[in-house]
């Protein structure tokens, strides 16, 4: 004799049917994600070699490398995060702010740029390199006006700070963002909200 009532049995049956469908769908999603991971990993590697590392000084260029496994893990986590979100909202494609925010979140977490064992002097730039690379990759999705707003603010504040004493200096949004990315827990959702707010200002 079953412990369940008829409505409970009906729910169990429907859940089992959903579970079967979900498993089949998950297989399809995993297959699409694998393709996306390959493509995006190669694109990011290309951008790192062609644009990002090329603009660094000699010391930095010779001291770091892009770790394949860490990069792939970051990109994979990004796509699983995005697909989890798509399952909930029912969106076909997520908007640019989310793509930027989650790219930054996962690249910051996995830190795919690593220091070579043979590296000599470690400059201050190297400590920030993963954060800046994450922003470089995230900026690819953002509106040019938003990127201009962030970068120009940083330039203006740096110029203002140039001949100021330490206690008179101001902090740019870019520097605050770097600080938050390094020391605070900045979730993807919060970053999305930050970029949406910047988009409003940049209109």
């Amino acid at each position, binding site marked *: 004799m079953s412990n369940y009532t008829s409505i409970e049995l009906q729910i169990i049956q429907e859940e089992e049917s959903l579970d079967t469908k979900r498993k089949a769908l998950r297989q399809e999603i995993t297959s699409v994600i694998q393709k996306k991971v390959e*493509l995006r990993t190669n*694109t990011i590697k*290309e*951008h790192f070699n*062609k*644009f*990002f590392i*090329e*603009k660094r000084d000699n010391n930095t260029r010779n001291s770091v490398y892009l770790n394949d496994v860490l990069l792939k893990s970051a990109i994979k986590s990004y796509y699983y995060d995005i697909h989890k*979100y798509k399952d*909930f*909202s*029912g*969106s*076909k*494609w*997520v*908007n*640019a*702010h*989310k*793509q930027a925010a989650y790219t930054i979140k996962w690249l910051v977490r996995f830190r795919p740029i690593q220091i070579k064992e043979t590296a000599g002097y470690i400059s201050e730039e190297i400590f920030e390199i993963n954060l*800046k690379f994450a*922003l*470089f990759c995230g*900026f*690819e*999705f953002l*509106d*040019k006006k938003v*990127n201009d707003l962030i*970068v120009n603010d*940083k*330039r203006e504040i740096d110029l203002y700070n140039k001949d100021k004493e330490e206690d008179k200096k101001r902090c740019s949004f*870019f520097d605050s963002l770097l600080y938050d990315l390094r020391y605070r827990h900045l979730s993807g959702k919060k970053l999305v909200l930050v970029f949406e707010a910047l*988009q409003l200002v940049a209109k």
Partner: protein
Amino acid sequence: MNTLVVSIIFSLCMLLTATGWFVTNLRTKKMPQISYDPSIDKINDETNSNTGYRFSKKELDERAKYNADNYMDVL
């Protein structure tokens, strides 16, 4: 005398019950439960100015080059 005491107790019980019912119902009406709503995210992705979109590799290459040419003093 007994009848009077019983009536007073009965009236008090009725009054308490009525007050309880009234307060509970008022609370329910004033504080409706709001369920988790995924439609806001869907609207945000698909109908706001930043519509959900898949960037092509070509577009991302162009944007990366633009960023490298214009923002590397900061990035």
